[in-house]
């Protein structure tokens, strides 16, 4: 029963996540940027922009320059989460890829790093008056949800071990559209349930910052407006203006 319920939940979450994010990303991609607005100093070449974005995505360059505390917590959280996610690949692959095996031990520390980052961010949201001022209930809930995910995950690893062989069989089953039996320990159910919720709200929340980042004209545009004429379809259709100074226009 629970196995089926969770199967439905996970399928639905996956579909909503993929379709939702794809729809939004397509929308971002199709919305024109009418003017060249890179925040300068900006690279003069495509390669330069790729490097700029790489520094943003991998090291959070701008955040590092602007706020060290948020950078530390954000960095711990995001990199921790990435390693934890990669570590989880072992539940979806058979045989497990060699490098996924390799990072298993680091993945555990990464879980703590992620948790530390999240708690730090939560504390800042609560105690730093400027951030508290700009926070809505959803901002706290989002962090709480991530903390719940991390916490339940760590619980399974260190407190109430879960039958991961069975979990893996269940996941591999879902990937072949078979519903096998899911262990029914509480941490696991909380863990999977909260992950599903996160997937569902992803496309309709600020979590869209992850793909959205790649569509910010201020960072992704090349600074070459003088050399190349930037054009937009809707602007091209504006009524033409006279090429010469109108006779009456002589002020």
């Amino acid at each position: 029963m629970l196995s089926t319920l969770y199967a439905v939940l996970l399928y639905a979450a996956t579909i909503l996540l993929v379709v939702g994010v794809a729809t939004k990303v397509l929308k971002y991609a199709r919305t024109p940027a009418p003017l060249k607005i890179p925040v300068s100093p900006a690279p003069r070449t495509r390669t330069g922009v790729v490097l700029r974005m790489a520094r943003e995505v991998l090291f959070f360059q701008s955040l590092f320059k602007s706020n060290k505390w948020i950078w530390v917590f954000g960095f711990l959280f995001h990199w921790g989460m990435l390693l934890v996610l990669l570590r989880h690949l072992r539940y979806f692959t058979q045989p497990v890829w060699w490098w996924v095996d390799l990072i298993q031990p680091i993945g555990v520390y990464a879980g703590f790093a992620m948790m530390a980052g999240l708690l730090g961010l939560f504390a800042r949201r609560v105690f730093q008056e400027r951030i508290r001022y700009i926070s809505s209930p959803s901002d706290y809930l989002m962090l709480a949800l991530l903390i719940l995910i991390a916490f339940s995950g760590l619980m399974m690893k260190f407190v109430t071990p879960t039958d991961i062989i069975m979990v893996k069989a269940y996941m591999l089953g879902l990937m072949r559209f078979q519903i096998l039996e899911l262990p029914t320990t509480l941490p696991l159910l909380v863990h999977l349930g909260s992950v599903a919720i996160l997937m569902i709200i992803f496309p309709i929340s600020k979590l869209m910052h992850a793909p959205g980042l790649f569509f910010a004209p201020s960072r992704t545009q090349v600074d070459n407006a003088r050399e190349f004429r930037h054009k937009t379809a809707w602007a091209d259709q504006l009524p033409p203006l006279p090429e010469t100074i109108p006779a009456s226009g002589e002020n």
Partner: protein
Amino acid sequence: MAPLDKNDDGTPKIGKDPLEIPKLACGASADIHTFEAAPEHNEPLGFPGELLDNWKEVAIAKMGELAEKNRAFRVYLDTCVKCGACTDKCHYFLGTGDPKNMPVARQDLLRSVYRRYYTFAGKYFPKLVGARDLTKEVLDEWYTYYHQCSQCRRCAVSCPYGIDTAEISMAAREILDSVGVGQKYCNEIIAKLKKTGNNLGLNPKALRATLDDLEEDLEDETGIPVKIPLDVKGADILLITPSADFFAEPHIDGLLGYAKVFHSAGVSWTLSSYASEAANFGMFIGSYENMREVSWRIRQAAKDLGVKRIVFGECGHAWRVAYSFLNTLAGPFDFLDQNYPIPQHILEFTLDEIESGRLKIDKSKNDEYVMTFHDSCNVARGSSMGREEGGQFEVPRAVLKAVCNNYYDMDPDTIRENTFCCGGGGGLLTDDLLDLRVKGAKPRMTALQQVTEEHGVTHMAAICAICKTQFSKVMPKYGYDMDSIMSVHQLVANAVILDGQETDEADEPVAEEST
């Protein structure tokens, strides 16, 4: 509560640290309103004269339209994670303490409404995500706080996602205009420009008379008939400069500097009365159409006069529009000489002259000044110069260091890409916002005070008409003389020695070289 500590005489007190973060003072600048435009200011720009009856529907529809037409608007409204990294970056927040002047809070004034009408979460769970209905109070709040943003992009530099509050401010002002709530200062000026070719409403006759006076001054000073040509067909270079260069101090001294540089370079150049304005207030109000119309005059003037090159004078926002938008708005400029940047900045021109050794300089002429340089926000973060990334910082400094001996930079956190707006940018340079302008200048004034104490800096140079006007007005409030702000080309003008110019000291080394 007093958001800004005052001295006994009522002038604002300068702190120790330009980046000092104030305590939140809710509503501290809620009463600072800029004058609203009258119908005769709005209508020539294509906006309704006054608040529409169905303003709410129109505003909501406009918001949707902007999300379709402008990727920045759509993406920025979606991607903010409320991390707070931008909260202490705005000079108006640092100066007033009003939390709605924190960049993210400023964005949220609009984002909250956008969410309500255009997102799933905001439609069904408004309380949860901080979405709210559009009401007259909200509209008024937009008017207040989107006219406390100078669109300087300091916040955009700090945001991990590059969210640029300036784009949101421009969009908000466009929405306000589209329902008939314009700002008097900007809209009146754009209307004037459409009639006369410049923001001042100077007609060609008056302009020529002003230039005649300046030519006389130049001849008195140098003994050489340096010209400031107007509407000369067939000239090589069309100079587009802010109209403040024709009448305001220290702007005029900059114009005299351009004239001397052009004279010394031996190029033929001209101003245009039809396009006698570099500033483009269309950007401030976020109106693509108005910005295009204003820019288009430059294309028309260039064609009409048959020039080969376009050079821009010292003007910050103008240079952003020129450097980043002109090609898009009024291009292609295939009829100009492709061997030169289109458009070129006067500093690029002058630096070329200096580096090639053609311009003769006597640095000691500026020895009475100990200089620093204020990077104008829109030049720093919305444009560039020269051939290298970051040229907008290096070119002006190279020129300054070539023409004066005493130069010191201010605190690194307040210059270059981290520079502060002067406090009067983005359409806020109006007397009805003077209170805000004084408060917004505080971080810059504090940084200046530091170098005055450490290095004895006496003067600050800038390359923006707005910065110059703003500083000459607010510097006295911070204990500096109003002429402590200088044009970069004013210093160039002081140091340049024209061919055949009589110099006081005949044994000057530079004079010897001149042949």
